[in-house]
């Protein structure tokens, strides 16, 4: 019973595929996976927009959307209808072709990245040998889309936003990938399925997730900061910066093209959170052994919603960084920490199991964190900030 509930989607797909003639089966199998992924994540997008607006509302001591449907739950539907019926404006000076292609170049790679995430036991689009590499490779295309959108709009704010976005994405991609390297070193594989399997099992009640090791915790925190910056989430939302450059690179987009950008941004956030779950949070595994009867996909999407909640919480809490703070943080703090974390992971790999390696690795990471933080802090010259135009 429990087994069949866990494998219900896999069995269903198998049943559907076997109904078709043999030569159509590979195609049909791929089609069902793709449709499943797109439908699931598009509805998750709708759900998280309403959750985000509600959550931000509560944080800012207001209600959030509450007019459309019961408790405002039909708001995403209204938003969708609105963007579909809005006029599609293209500036006269804009580069029409590039302006048109840019949203597509964002949305397609973002959905492609979802293909390698294991969303449950035996539930993965493709189990690639180089899955993690594939994920980062398709993610690289989004930078290009941002540039295309910003440049083709022929708007100074657009171009500013695009430049900010590219500088930020390139800077944070380095610590992001370096912090993922630790997991690849420990699991000994680039395949996402193998990485999840490597985190199976429990010691007593404690799961063998990588986040529950000193290097894993440091890597997870670095990864999540990098993920927030990669998906342009607050406090790293300088590329949009409503109060500074209006809406950044999609200022000249309206109607459904704007909705596509919005979709791409959110699905990108889901994808990178899904990768964080796969790499550090044990993928679809249950946190304690007695809860293993709950289906595996429930755990994956539960963890995903939890990470989204953290993103919303952070957005409602932290103010936006300044450009120089953003760059300093990436290059002077996150990059050295990520490099050092790789060293510590190597040590962890070769010190025999026991309390010694816990002690040594924890001490090294905390020591590096304190030393680096102190050094950077001492170099700051604190003074009253002076503004040129705001006084």
């Amino acid at each position, binding site marked *: 019973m429990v087994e069949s509930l866990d494998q219900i989607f896999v069995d269903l797909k198998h049943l559907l595929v076997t109904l078709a003639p043999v030569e159509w089966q590979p195609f049909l199998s791929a089609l069902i996976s793709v449709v499943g992924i797109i439908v699931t994540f598009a509805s998750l997008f709708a759900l998280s927009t309403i959750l985000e607006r509600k959550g931000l509302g509560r944080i800012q001591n207001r209600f959030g959307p509450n007019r459309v449907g019961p408790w405002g739950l039909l708001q995403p539907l209204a938003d969708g209808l609105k963007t579909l019926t809005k006029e599609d404006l293209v500036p006269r000076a804009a*580069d029409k072709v*590039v302006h048109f292609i840019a949203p597509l170049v964002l949305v397609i790679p973002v959905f492609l990245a979802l293909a390698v995430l294991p969303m449950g036991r035996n539930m993965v689009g493709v189990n*690639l*040998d*180089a899955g993690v*590499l*594939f994920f*980062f*490779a*398709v*993610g*690289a*295309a989004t*930078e*290009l889309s941002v*540039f*295309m959108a910003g*440049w083709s709009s*022929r*708007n*100074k*704010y657009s*171009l*500013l936003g695009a*430049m*900010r976005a*590219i*500088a930020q994405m*390139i800077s944070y*991609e*380095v610590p992001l990938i370096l912090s993922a390297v630790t997991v690849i070193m420990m699991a000994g*594989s*680039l395949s996402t399925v193998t990485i999840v399997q490597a985190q199976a099992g429990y010691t007593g009640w404690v799961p063998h997730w990588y986040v529950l090791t000193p290097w894993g915790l440091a890597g997870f925190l670095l990864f999540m900061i990098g993920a927030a910056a990669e998906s342009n989430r607050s406090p790293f939302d300088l590329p949009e910066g409503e109060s*500074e*450059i209006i809406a950044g690179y999609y200022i000249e987009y309206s109607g459904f093209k704007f909705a596509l950008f919005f979709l791409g941004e959110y699905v990108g956030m889901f994808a990178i959170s899904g990768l964080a779950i796969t790499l550090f949070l044990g993928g679809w595994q249950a946190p304690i052994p007695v809860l293993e009867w709950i289906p595996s996909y429930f755990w994956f999407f539960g963890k995903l919603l939890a990470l989204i909640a953290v993103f919303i919480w952070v957005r409602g809490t932290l103010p936006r960084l*300044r*450009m*120089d703070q*953003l*760059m*300093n943080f990436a*290059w*002077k703090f996150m*990059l*050295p920490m990520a*490099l050092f974390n790789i060293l510590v992971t190597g040590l962890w790999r070769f010190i025999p199991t026991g309390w010694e390696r816990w002690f040594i690795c924890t001490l090294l990471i905390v020591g590096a964190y304190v030393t680096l933080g102190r050094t950077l802090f001492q*170099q*700051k*010259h604190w*003074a009253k*900030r*002076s*503004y*040129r*135009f*705001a006084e």
Partner: protein
Amino acid sequence: MPLVFVVLSLLTLAGAIAAMSLRNLVHCALALTATFAGLAALYLQLDAQFAGFAQVLVYIGAVSILIVFAILLTRGAEPGGQSVFSASWFWGGAVALMVFGILSGIILSSKALPLDSPPPPRATVSQIGDQLMTKYVLPLEVLGLLLTSALIGAVIVAIPEKVAAAPVRTQPTSAGTRNGETLRIHGELSNPPDLPLGVGQGESSEVSS
């Protein structure tokens, strides 16, 4: 399978030709990116996963962005007055054709080329990793050391913060001030990492004019 190859190679070639012949430099860079993507797809079609993904990661993710930045930092993307064809296009084309003919002739008549080549081995990522860690470990280590030291060196160059950064107040009022005012509020514009902002400024004044 040949159909896939034909489509991909046509895409790659079309991108390359467009990259040479378009007037707008940014369009050329984007067309070049399409060529990179086509090459990556060709690698994937040959079952070379690692090479294909590395191609996407390095060329589409980094090299094309670098090219675009270089274009925007040096001069506007506006086409110049001159024709895209060089005056000596005929002789250039003739030389290229001749070299191609000679090379393909030599390759086809080569004895080293076995007529029935054995099926290519399927190189998995772990095999590539094994080879890198055993047979090619010295070049790998040297490269890794070089790249890491370049990375750390770049950070060290950026670390010293300017003591009491020169007051922004002394900026001469130039044509860029109007665009600048939204930006200067952030202060500390003299930091090297602010480069993109500065770029945007120069570009934006051009766009708005």
